[in-house]
């Protein structure tokens, strides 16, 4: 059941982002502290005033990266935003796995490669050759710059 999966996953994060749509149809997102309410199986969401938000389809994202934009992990949940006498609440319906762990990595690389082939074939696109030499040259250059900077300090 999505609720149990979401409650388990949300415990691994300090905060979450909720996305809904405003009266103009643009997405609006806000970070909040997710505290699951077992009784109603919803997450209370304190939203700032003035965002022109109405009840409707919504999404929450929890994600983490370290200072080096690494150790990536995430998950999403589809659901709806409801306005109750107690305020705004997110009611999840579907757990959407994201990054983090071996299974997610395998899913990313196997599924991603298959979808990439399909994307290119459908559009008749010949992809550019990946310039690994150029990428590695940039890497070496930046490392040298950092080393020179450290030596000066």
């Amino acid at each position: 059941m999505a609720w149990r999966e979401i409650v388990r996953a949300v415990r691994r994060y300090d905060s979450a982002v909720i996305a809904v749509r405003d009266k103009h149809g643009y997405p609006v997102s806000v970070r909040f502290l997710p505290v699951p309410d077992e009784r109603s199986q919803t997450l209370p969401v304190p939203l700032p005033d003035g965002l022109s938000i109405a009840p409707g389809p919504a999404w929450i994202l929890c994600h983490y990266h370290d200072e080096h934009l690494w150790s990536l992990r995430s998950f999403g949940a589809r659901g709806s935003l409801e306005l109750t006498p107690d305020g705004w609440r997110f009611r999840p319906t579907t757990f959407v796995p994201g990054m983090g762990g071996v299974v997610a990595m395998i899913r990313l690389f196997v599924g991603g490669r298959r979808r990439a082939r399909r994307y290119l074939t459908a559009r008749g696109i010949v992809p550019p050759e990946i310039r690994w030499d150029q990428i590695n040259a940039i890497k070496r250059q930046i490392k040298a710059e950092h080393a020179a900077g450290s030596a000066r300090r």
Partner: protein
Amino acid sequence: MNEPVLTTTSAAAPVSSDFSALFGVPAEVGAVVREFRSCEFSTVARDGTPVTWPTFPFFEPERRRFLITSSVGLAQKAFNIQRDARVAMLFSNAMGSGLASPPTVLIQGDAEVPAGLGQFDERFESMTRLLFERQPIGITLLGALPGPLRHLVDWYCWRVLIYVRPRRIRWWYESDRGGTSDEVVL
């Protein structure tokens, strides 16, 4: 995209590369856009649900827009934009930015996905440099793969380009939670 590029010529004043000067927002907001390592990028799915995932935005001051790239194997956000151009970028995770108590910044905008894939040009080089500065492990792992295995990750480097032109910029501070935000409508 056939739009005028704001270029610097001998007869014209240099174009500021600073987000805050370009859009008339406080310097703290510009610092967030410049220094944050990621943003939460929302597109609108077929059923109207805003779908949000973290991403790495690259600001192009001379065109007053953001560039976000996505592997062709992870192109759902591009498909969403082709149906509905309305998007949002939330800068709410200060990890790695070096900023203390920065405001939260929400940028709503219109996105477009040009045909074709990103090329290995000057822009690619500057993006790779920035990415390497900010995410050194990922690019090191990719670059360190032995030649015969590299074709297994080529798909990750074939990138769809997404341009986001800001329409509304909102910001608020931690102390304002539950209160109102400031904004600039463009």
